[in-house]
């Protein structure tokens, strides 16, 4: 377990290095000049001299590798630079926006977990029944619905037809219900299908037949053995979804006017706000790597066989 954590932490450093390098390179090959974009926001018609001055001021005149190392050097001191757009430190911007998105994603994942476990078990225990069929169609629909459209439908329903709670009021839990549901529907659909399939394959395993042959109660077989064996793929996907939903939250955030990190990143990209883009990419990569590691640790705890194999593979 300890060696696994150590291995993951080394992997984390490598991944973060690659991600920051890539986001730097990709930003530099973009056709729009960040200095020009910056100048355009400050003055109506900037002269080439003004743009050149801004380029020097922002450090964009330096060769790319020098820019990168300067950025990494500052990063190691906890400084992600100043946003071109908001003129505030990138880190404090992120610290302000990220909690909104994390709350949104967290609530969405609560819905997902609440729905997936019971529905997955019910459909897997009685496959082919009317309920199972209905769930299958509903999940196909749920996976295929575009989230902006679903969000609009929910907005329409709860603002005009059924105004039971305040939809737009940032900061309260109520304001997060609709956006989190919009995020949760497609995710839950994917999760239910995965969980049902894993449960079914586990229910057909030899150990289930043998447990029944020993007279062990069906409820115990399902809850203690089958569910536990079916969790690892679900946990892996669940942790991946934390990162996916954080990045994918931009659409929902703009739809429900939530000041989250998804919108922040989109705005920064449009404005060529390079420090913000690089900072956001770094934070999101960090979320991906951390949740992935968490998934592996949980799975190793659940199934000792998984650690065994890893240990053997990596020595």
């Amino acid at each position, binding site marked *: 377990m300890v060696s696994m954590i150590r291995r993951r932490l080394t992997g984390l450093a490598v991944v973060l290095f690659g991600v920051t390098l890539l986001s730097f390179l990709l930003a530099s090959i973009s056709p729009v000049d960040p200095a020009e974009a910056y100048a355009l926001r400050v003055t109506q018609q900037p002269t080439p001299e003004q743009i050149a001055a801004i380029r020097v001021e922002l450090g964009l005149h330096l060769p790319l590798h020098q820019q990168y190392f300067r950025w990494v050097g500052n990063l190691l001191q906890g400084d992600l630079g100043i946003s071109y757009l908001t003129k505030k430190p990138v880190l404090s911007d992120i610290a302000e926006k990220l909690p909104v998105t994390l709350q949104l994603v967290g609530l969405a994942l609560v819905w997902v977990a609440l729905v997936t476990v019971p529905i997955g078990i019910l459909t897997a225990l009685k*496959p*082919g029944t009317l309920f199972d069929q209905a769930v299958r169609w509903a999940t196909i629909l749920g996976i295929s619905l575009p989230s902006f459209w679903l969000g609009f439908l929910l907005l329409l329903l709860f603002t005009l037809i059924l105004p039971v709670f305040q939809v737009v009021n940032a900061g309260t839990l109520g304001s997060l219900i609709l956006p989190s549901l919009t995020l949760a529907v497609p995710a839950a659909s994917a999760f239910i299908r995965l969980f049902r399939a894993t449960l079914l394959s586990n229910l057909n*395993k*030899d*150990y289930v*037949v*043998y*447990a*029944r*042959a*020993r*007279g*062990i*109660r069906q409820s*115990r077989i399902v809850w*203690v*053995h089958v569910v*536990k*064996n079916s969790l690892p793929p679900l946990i892996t996907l669940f942790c991946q979804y934390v990162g996916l939903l954080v990045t994918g939250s931009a659409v929902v955030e703009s739809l429900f006017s939530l000041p989250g990190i998804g919108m922040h990143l989109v705005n920064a990209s449009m404005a060529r706000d390079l420090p913000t883009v690089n900072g956001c990419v770094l934070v999101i990569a960090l979320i991906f790597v951390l949740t992935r590691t968490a998934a592996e640790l949980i799975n190793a705890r*659940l*199934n*000792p*066989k998984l650690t*065994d194999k890893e240990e053997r593979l990596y020595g």
Partner: protein
Amino acid sequence: MSELLQVESLCIGLKQTGKPIVKQVSFALRKGAALAVVGESGSGKTLTCKAILRLLHDRTFTVSGSIRYRGQELLAASERDMRALRGNRIAMIVQHPMMAFDPTATIGTQITETIMAHRRISKRDAYSSGVRALERMNLPRCEQLMNSYPSELSGGMLQRIVIALAIIHEPDVIIADEPTTALDVRNQSMVLQELKQLKQSGIGLLLVTHDFGVAAGLADEMLVMREGEVIERGTVHDVFAAPREAYTKELLEARILMRKEDRHDRDEGCIQTV
């Protein structure tokens, strides 16, 4: 009536297509006797075993005929009554001990839950009687075994645990489905020895195998099955001395041939390793 288990005209079919898989199988098992069901794979032996304990999904299979345990009709019994019999009065030894246990639970957990399925005792008492059951099977370091996971143990060890679990509630009938197939030669003879002792202690043993040697070593009577039908039956001695059916002869000859090849292979293997 001395019959522990009486199976009459057992038919198993596929629900969807109605295709029959096991046809009109009848046999009886007495106390202290061993009956071998012999046949090649796909002859319906394992399905017959599972049908006795009603382990076949009624979504997939239709089962008809009669299976009586001490006069009680099992095909008409409630699921609750069946659960009370399974592992308690009729126990099972499985073909693949490596796949028989939940890989995410310790052996100890799976032994204690088996004990607690049929006895009202505390977890701690169940645990210690589990340790004793393992000790009876001459397994080493039983306390440590209880804390290990199935993937950490060898097939032979797991099969001994399976046998320990089969006798833990002192059943009347043990159904052993290919108990030695997945094991190496040394563990095979160990398991056969155990089964012989069980038979002598008065348990009715239903032995399913494709191996005439195993059948000859343990059973008194045998059935030969082919494509779901019983094509020959009699005492082991009679069937071996004078097989009436051409198929039985074929199987017996195939075994003798296999033995020769086996020996040949082993010789070659020795040469190669040298």
